[in-house]
């Protein structure tokens, strides 16, 4: 094991408080820290203002405070090809993709990791709330101790190639403490607001953003029984279980999105939060990544998350061929959404994850889910 001072750690710095503190902690531990800002998206407006420029300014200020070198690297093309194209394709297919999972898989922990290694780095560190731990010659990924901030859901596609080379300095720290550390050290980003939403959309209106890239095709809103309830603005604007924006009035329980028919451009709606059509008991997921690189042969029980910040659910997992898994729920689940990730856990350890492809009830695919 090399001494910290001989160990070069590239920190992916976004100009936010988390990565700033990650860099600070590594510097305090004596590592040879290099800060790198990654530019994946150009949002330069008509006044020539670009959030990346502002964020990079913050990276520069923090790195100068820490007295570490800083650089920038551009992955706009890779991001467009690997993440954004996928994002649009999924929406076109009527699904609800998770670009952050894809960004971590293809950009941050692949292209960016390669870049870090080309700079002689021993490790790549980020400000994610997750932990890594060595066990029997392998590296496990554990949830961050701050349950509220745990980001392993987004990191489910990391495998041993990545995990053996990453550091998550914030994994052991609750978020409020991270802010405190930033404030105590007078970091330039200590009071900066956390970014919210999908990075390339930022604070903008999601619907407006999407309409710039995909033609919206308005169509009929129907109940599963075929009763027309109104018009929808385009299937891509709706996600399963959603209540807002349907504009159906009248008596009784509120209305919810319960499904999509992409080929006929129909949005299915149903009355009541607990509408039967929203409930399923198993799913098939594709592109399963096992964080320890070993595919289990037998079925096993564990817990799973079907969306970020949801409580774990008990499930039984059946490994299938072609990197697919079948996940059977011990209790039925509401609004399982194709395109989102299903992430598996053995207590604190994140076992990996896959993309939800089909949702089933009574062993049959639920056709109306799309």
């Amino acid at each position, binding site marked *: 094991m090399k001494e910290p001072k001989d160990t070069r750690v590239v920190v992916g710095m976004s100009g936010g408080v988390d990565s700033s503190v990650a860099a600070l902690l590594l510097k305090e531990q004596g590592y040879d820290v290099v800060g*790198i800002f990654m*530019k994946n998206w150009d949002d330069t407006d008509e006044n020539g203002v670009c959030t*990346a420029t502002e964020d990079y300014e913050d990276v520069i200020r923090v790195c100068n405070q820490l007295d570490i*070198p800083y*650089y920038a*690297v551009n992955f706009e093309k890779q991001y467009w090809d690997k993440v954004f194209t996928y994002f649009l394709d999924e929406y076109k297919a009527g699904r609800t993709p998770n670009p952050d999972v894809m960004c971590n898989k293809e950009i941050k922990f692949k292209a960016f990791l390669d870049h870090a290694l080309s*700079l002689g780095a021993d490790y790549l560190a980020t400000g994610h709330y997750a932990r890594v731990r060595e066990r029997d010659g392998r590296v496990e990924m554990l949830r961050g101790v701050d349950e509220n901030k745990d980001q392993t859901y987004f990191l489910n596609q990391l495998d041993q190639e990545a995990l053996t080379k990453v550091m998550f300095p914030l994994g052991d720290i609750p978020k409020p403490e991270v802010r405190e550390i930033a404030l105590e050290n007078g970091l330039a980003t200590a009071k900066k607001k956390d970014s919210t939403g999908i990075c390339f959309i930022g604070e903008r209106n999601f619907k407006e953003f999407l309409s710039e890239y995909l033609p919206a095709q308005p169509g009929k809103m129907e109940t599963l029984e075929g009763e027309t309830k109104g018009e929808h603005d385009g299937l891509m604007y709706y996600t399963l279980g959603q209540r807002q924006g349907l504009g159906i009035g009248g008596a009784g329980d509120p209305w919810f999105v319960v499904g999509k028919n992409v080929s006929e451009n129909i949005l299915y709606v149903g009355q009541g939060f607990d509408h039967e059509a929203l409930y399923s008991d198993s799913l098939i997921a594709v592109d399963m990544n096992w964080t320890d690189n070993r595919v289990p042969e037998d079925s096993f029980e564990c817990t799973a998350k079907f969306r970020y910040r949801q409580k774990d659910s008990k499930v039984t997992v059946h490994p299938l061929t072609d990197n697919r898994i079948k996940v059977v729920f011990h209790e039925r689940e509401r609004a399982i959404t194709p395109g989102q990730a299903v992430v598996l856990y053995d207590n604190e350890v994140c076992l990996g994850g896959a993309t939800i492809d089909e949702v089933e009830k009574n062993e049959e695919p639920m056709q109306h889910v799309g």
Partner: protein
Amino acid sequence: MEAIYLDHAATTPVHDEVIEAMVPVYREVYGNPSSIHQYGRKARQVLDEARRKVAASIGAGEKEIIFTSGGTEADNLAIFGVTEELGEGHVVTTSIEHHAVLHAVAALEKQGFDVTYVAPEPDGAVTAEAVKEALREDTVLVSVMMVNNETGVRQPVEEIGEALKNHPAYFHSDAVQALGIENIDVRETAVDLLAFSGHKINGPKGIGFLFAREGVPLTPMTYGGEQERKRRAGTENVQAVKGLEKAMEMMEENREEHVAQYENYKKSFLSVLEEEEVSFEVNGQNTTAAIVNISFHNMDVETMLTNFDLEKVAASSGSACTAGSFEPSHVLSAMFPDDPERMRNSIRFSFGAANNETNVKEAARRVASIYRRLNK
């Protein structure tokens, strides 16, 4: 690991003698040169003496020197100074000028001037013929730099000056990269306006000067007091002017010796790269001694420059990588419009006072080793 500075075209270390010349001025000569009392006179004395010496070193008259905050301001004063009163007309420049000229000319375009940008040949220089051909009857200003700051390629300023003798247009040249390396004598070169900077010749930052030949009318860009014969308002930067004077004096004494040294550094640098089997090409021909711009095959500027810095070799590229956005060098784009690779893989090394034969070779070895590692 010793840090090695190969970015003298960006800026240079300040000579100790320059600092020593400035310190007493900071300490003792704090008067305002415009004041009528002895404190003012003392400062004015420093200013006058510096102006005399600076003027003499380029063969100019004292009245032809206007101290500015640097090269950019000198370029701007020249370009706007001779066009301001006209309001319209035609301007000829090149597509490889420094942004201090290009952006100033672009501002003229917005004001209604017509601009022709002469493109360079693949060797990095514009031809005097091409500049001549671009001339029109209503051409009011021609601006062509002496030495390109990215490639070090010399531009045919003398020839262009000759060609313009029978044309009323004013001839301006950005001489920032030429100073200290090339022989500059305004008695021999038919230019009307020349822009210079102090910090490129081991002087302080924040000081430069414009040579404006007697009779060239200049509208000031700043309004205020009557300093610099009403052409540049604002209290003079007396200490920096003193530093500039000293830097010019030292430059004159050592110029030829330095040029010979830098030529050797360049040769050594390139021969180490060759010995270490780096696959590269030099961009541009007929280059000045201090600058070499190298295209490294199969490489990428961002990754290379980051690696160089981590290995403590300081160099740069004309391409701007601000906040991760890659803006290819306008100079290389103009030289090699059909070779986008070359815009992405070229780096400028520039030699100067911080170098010796040993550290130049050492830098080349580090560059070669990074190249090999990245090229695997």
